[in-house]
Each structure stands twice: as structure tokens, then as C-alpha cells.
């Protein structure tokens, strides 16, 4: 069995603006949790979503893929996605290696 990774989402909702703060590791074992939570919020009528990645310790390519899909969805369905850049090296690596640091809607771009 693959060991489950530590991952937590804390949520702040004010009217239709939702902020999800991620703590821990966003990888193939925790991506479904975040995906479910976001889609749940959107169903409940959120139209501005901020993902705060500051405390994210690690992100892999499946985490990045989810961010790209959410950005696609936001443009197609007319809601706003904002990203707050991670501070930890192991989480920014995949963003910088793929050009996602400039292409995704980060409020301030991730730095090394």
C-alpha cells in the first residue's frame, strides 16, 4: 500500500468568495480531495476562488494538472481563479519547470 500523504485544506467563505488554504503535500493521493472540495464550492455558488498555496510543502505533476484544469474551467464557466504562490522550494519546482509560474493566475509569481 502506498502511504497516504499528509494534506489539509482550511476554508474561508465570505459570500461568493472562497479561499482554500492548502497545507502539506499535493500529489496524486491528495489531488482528489482538493478537486472534490473545489467542485463542491462551485456547486454551492462560489464565483471567486482563491487557492492559497503558501504552506504547500510539495506539489507534483498531478497537482499542477489540477491547477491547469481549474484555470480552464474558470475561463470557460466565467468564475475567477486566483493563486497565491507557494513558499517552499519543493512546491515551486514543478511550477517553474513547466512555465506554470507565469501562465497561471498567480497574484505574485513564485520565486525560487
Amino acid at each position, binding site marked *: 500500500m*502506498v502511504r497516504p500523504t499528509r494534506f489539509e485544506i482550511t476554508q474561508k467563505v465570505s459570500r461568493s468568495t472562497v479561499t482554500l488554504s492548502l497545507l502539506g503535500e499535493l500529489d496524486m493521493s491528495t489531488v482528489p480531495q482538493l478537486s472534490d472540495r473545489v467542485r463542491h464550492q462551485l456547486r454551492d455558488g462560489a464565483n471567486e476562488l482563491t487557492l492559497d498555496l503558501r504552506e504547500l510543502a510539495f506539489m507534483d505533476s498531478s497537482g499542477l494538472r489540477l491547477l491547469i484544469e481549474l484555470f480552464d474551467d474558470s475561463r470557460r464557466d466565467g468564475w475567477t481563479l486566483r493563486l497565491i504562490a507557494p513558499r517552499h522550494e519543493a512546491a515551486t519546482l514543478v511550477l517553474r519547470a513547466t512555465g506554470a509560474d507565469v501562465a497561471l493566475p498567480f497574484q505574485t509569481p513564485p520565486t525560487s
Partner: protein
Amino acid sequence: MLDRAHNAVISMDERGLVTYWNPSAEGMFGIESERAAGRPVAELIIPERFRAAHVAGLERFLADGTGPLLGRRVEMAALRCDGSEFPVEMTISAIRDGPGWTFTTFVQDISARRAAERERERLVEELQQALTGSERRFEAIVGRLSDPVTIRDRSDRITYANRAALVHLGFATTEELRRTPPAEIMRDYIVSREDGGAVAMDAIPSVRLLRGEAPEPLLIRTVHRRSGQERWNLLKASPLLDEAGQVESTIMVIEDVTEQKRAERRSEFLAEASRALASSLDYQRTLQTVAELAVPHIADWCAVDLVDRDGDRVSVSVAHVDPDKLRLADELRAYEPARPDPAQGLGLVLRTGEALLYPEITEQMISGAAVDGRHLELLRAVGFRSAAVVPITLGERVLGAMTLVSAESGRTLDRSDLELAEQVGARAAVAIENARIYSERSQIAHTLQQSLLPEELPDVPGYELASAYIPAFEYTEVGGDFYDVWQARGQWMLAVGDVTGKGVEAATLTSLVRHTLRATSDFLSSPAELLAQLDATLKRQRRRSVCTAICARVEPDGVTLAVGGHPLPLRVHPSGAEQAGEFGPLLGAFDEVDWQDRHVELPPGDTLVFFTDGVTDALRDDGERYGLERLRGALARCGEDTAAQVVATVTAAVEAFQAGEHADDTAVLALHRRPDHEHGDGAADEI
């Protein structure tokens, strides 16, 4: 099949929503199955003050796999639809069901048991007070007790027995009982302790009381020799003191705990069997475990037979606590045909899918089944008393059957044993089917994966190539890692990449990426331009299709490469290992992006190692990732090793680090420039 259980059986999914609700649950909670389905278990049956703990427990299990309540019998309060609460005993088991977990709870209403306990305590208290009062008042109270009560004098002779005690021991009057020596009374019963051991006379609570000890209640199991009826009794003794404070007589209450004890054993067996069946995909081994769990608590023998593709019976497991008896089973098996008689027993169950119960196996049945003298001798040696055969079915299909036999314990099997076996049979069917689907999917995935990777690496003059592909542990789907080496316009090209995703989608996309790169390379020789073409192709796909890739053109002194969102390759040289090339954007993902060609010089003896993120993201037990620095460290020691040696170093290092299975697929491709003296003849002309 579960619908006939006496216990309420409730299943829920990972979100805590009801997926199964049996008729007993309808009765117990006053909620119909259709109304319960899809609603949160917490709202239906858990009193409000415990709901938060239930939700937290579920989340914790899903997060880290710990479930302190799982597989144990737990007493707690439950809620009826009218808001009233009642005490229950429950056992929860978690079963992996496809991608998620299913939780099944067996619930027993223990209100009646609780009420009886309180009533009994009150009456015994009254009794002790009354014994100091009149004879008539004494009889009035003891007579009301539904539990057998006996009073014994200092020499442990029975001086009094109430009505229930006389019925229990099979006597008409107290006089008759008094005249019968204790050894004779016990002759009709097989008496044992819970662990199956013999009950010593000086362990009986009344005897211990007379010795001046303060005995705990003693649990015993009795099987009536003639009827085969099994009972569980809890013997409790209290002293009656004379004026000097000495024990004058002992009052012994024999509490019948048969139903409780059997329910307890059944739910333990069910929980353990469910856990065993869910624990592994090796169903033959788990069925053996299940058979072993059944003996001796449920039956003396347990056997599981499955039907193979040709309809022949395949014996999977036989269990008995005594190894000598198992040898008997081996010898008996030689007499059993591959196609058992479809008109009776196992054959009938395999044909109809209906369970069979033989409460009493007669001498006539045994001699009728024997084919010769030796067979009859063996059948008699087993000492059959009673048997139950239940099907293991999946929908209409009968996969096999489980047989329970009661022999030397002397006890007869009844409907409740049959129902229990059916419940285990239903779980076994799911386990067998899961294992079959898994092995089929794994086979398909393996074949498809092979078709997406080059059959063998070509000879590239002046260079040596080696590769490794390690599929993820859950190898039922095609992974997204790929590599390719091909020749176009007289030049050797190579690519390594990762199409995040799994399964058919990943396989289709991998195939598209490989063919796009190969086809485009007939017209373009710049790796950066090839990636730009690939990016455009991916963006034309109906579904968002992204991938990482490195494309490289092999040249006499090294490679020219472009990187699309992929980990940079490492160049291994005698004094270390460094990243080579430059990051470029992910393919198929972003607007207005481009890629750059970079030349990486490879002096003779150097190796360029391409890899996917399965290497660097590999996870250790403590949560640590393998990471780039460890990989560089491992490669720095490779010096001028050959490509095959370098690949072996990487895979060995990652495997040692993970100390377990790969969570993700992992690909490694090494391009080693042969030292000058190894150059093949005419190699330079070909490049």
C-alpha cells in the same frame, strides 16, 4: 443474501452515505431501506452528541488508515427514527471496494439483554434478603427467576433447585435431582471452557466459595450428547453465611448466555473473515485463512471448493484444528469426484446456488454415500454430526461453495450457522471477483504498456543506450511515462516524457505524442520546433491534453535538446552529475509560449540520464521524497560507467529508498558516449 441476517447490516461509502440497509435495519431503526439509501449514517442512527466523533473517525481513517473501532465489538447508544435511544453492540469492518472504501456495520440490539441483567441483579439481591426470612417468601422469589438457581450445602450437595434448574438439568422433582450423583448429571453433556479446555471441578464457583475464595463468574459451554444442542452458561455463586460468619450454603445462578455468546462469536468471525478477504488479492490464501477462522468456533471442519472454467470442482482449502484429522481429509478427497453428484450435497449447491443444511447426519446417510469399505471407514472416522453447505455466488453465477461440518464437538448446526456461512460466502465471492478483475486488467495494462515502449533500443553509433520502465504498484492501468528512440532524415532522435494521467486516456495520448514527434521529424530537425508542433497538436485535442517531454537529436559530440516542462536530464561525468539544458513550458498547456534548442556536449565516457518525476517524487515511509539531490549523489559515483550500469544504479537507489512499491510509474533512459577507443568502424559516417 445479507437480507436474512438477524443483525441489522448497514453499509456506507467513504462519504458516510448509506449504500446498504437490510430488512433487520428497517425494523431496528424504523426507517425503510429506500428512505435510508444515500443518506448520512450519522443522521440516521447516531445520537447527535456522538456525530462529530463519527465524522472525525471516518476522516482520520481515510487520511491515515487508523480505525481503532474497526473489527472490534463495541457497545454504544443508537438512535431510532422516533428520536429514542437504545443500547447496541456493533462490529464495523472496512472493505476496499474498487477505488474507495465500503464500511459495513453489524448492529445487534442489546436492550433486552441489558434489561434482563438489571432484573436479575435486583432479584438476586431480594433473594439474599429473603433467605433470612420465611421459606414461603423464599420460594416465591426464586420461583420467579427464569434462570436456574441451585443451593448447595457445605459438601456441595444440592439442597434446593428452582423450577428453571430442574428443567435445565432434566429432572422432574428436587428429590430426584438430590438422589442423582453430580457425575451422572454431567454424563449427558460435553462440558468445556471457552478455549475448549476441560472444566476442572475445583474451578466451579460454588466449590471455590466453599474453599474461602471470592470466585469470578465462570463461562462454560455445554453440548447435550443426545440432541447436539449447544448452550453457553455463566455460573455465578454467592455465599450464604451462618451466624458465625462461615459459609453455610452457596447459591448458584446459571445464567444462559447462549444467544449473546453465539452472536459475539459470529460477529467476530464475520469481522475477521471480512478483514482477511479484503486484505489481499491472493484469494486462494485468504480463503484458507477464512476456513481456519471458522474452526473450531463455528464448526469443527470448514472446506472451500471453487468451480473452474470447465465446471470442475477445485478444492481450495480445508481446515480443522487437529493436523491428524487433516490427513484424513486428504485421503477422503481422493474419493470425491471432480463433478460431484448434482442431485445432493455439494453438487446440488453448485448446481442450484441454494444453501443446504443437514442438521442431523445419520448412519444411513453415511453408508449410502460410501463407495467402498475404506471410504465408509474414513467417513465414520470423521464422526459427522451435522453439516451446512452454502454457495459462493456472484449474481446468478456460482463460483463455489463453503462447507461447514460439525463432528467431535457433537453440536448440531442450525439456521443461524447457515446464515452466517452465507454472509461469509457473499464476501468471498466479491474477493474472488476482485482478484480476477485485477489480474485481467493488470494483464491488459501490461500488454498495452509494452506496445507504447520500443521493443528494443536501437544501436546508435558512438553511443550506448539503456532504459528501464518500472510500472506503478497498482499496475492495473497504463501509466503515462514513455521514451522513444528513432531515426529520421539520417539522424537519431530520442524523446522522454510523461502524459500526466492513467489508463486508456494516457495510452491514447502517449501514442499521439510518439507518432506526432516521429512524423514531424521527417520535416523538421530542430527539437524545439518539434515540441512546438507537438504543443499545437495537443491544443487541437478536444479534451485538455498536456504532457511533459524532452526531445533530443543525437550528434557526434553530444545532443541538441529542447525541454517541455520536463525534469532536466543529468550529465554524468567523472567528477559528478549536473543538470543539462534549460526548462521550457509544459506542452499543450499555455498560450504564447516557445521552446529553445540547447546543445549539450558529451565528452567520451560521459552519460546523459533522462528520467521522469517518478524518480524524484518517490516517497519513503516517513514522507521524505527522493529528490534531485539524492539522484545527483547516486549518479556522481557512476564515473564512466556504461549506460546499463547507470540505469541499474538509478533504479536500485530509488527502490532502496522507497523500501516498498512504486506509487507512480518511473522511466529512465541513459545515453552513454562510448570512450574513443571503443568507436565502431565507420560509425562517424553514419551519423
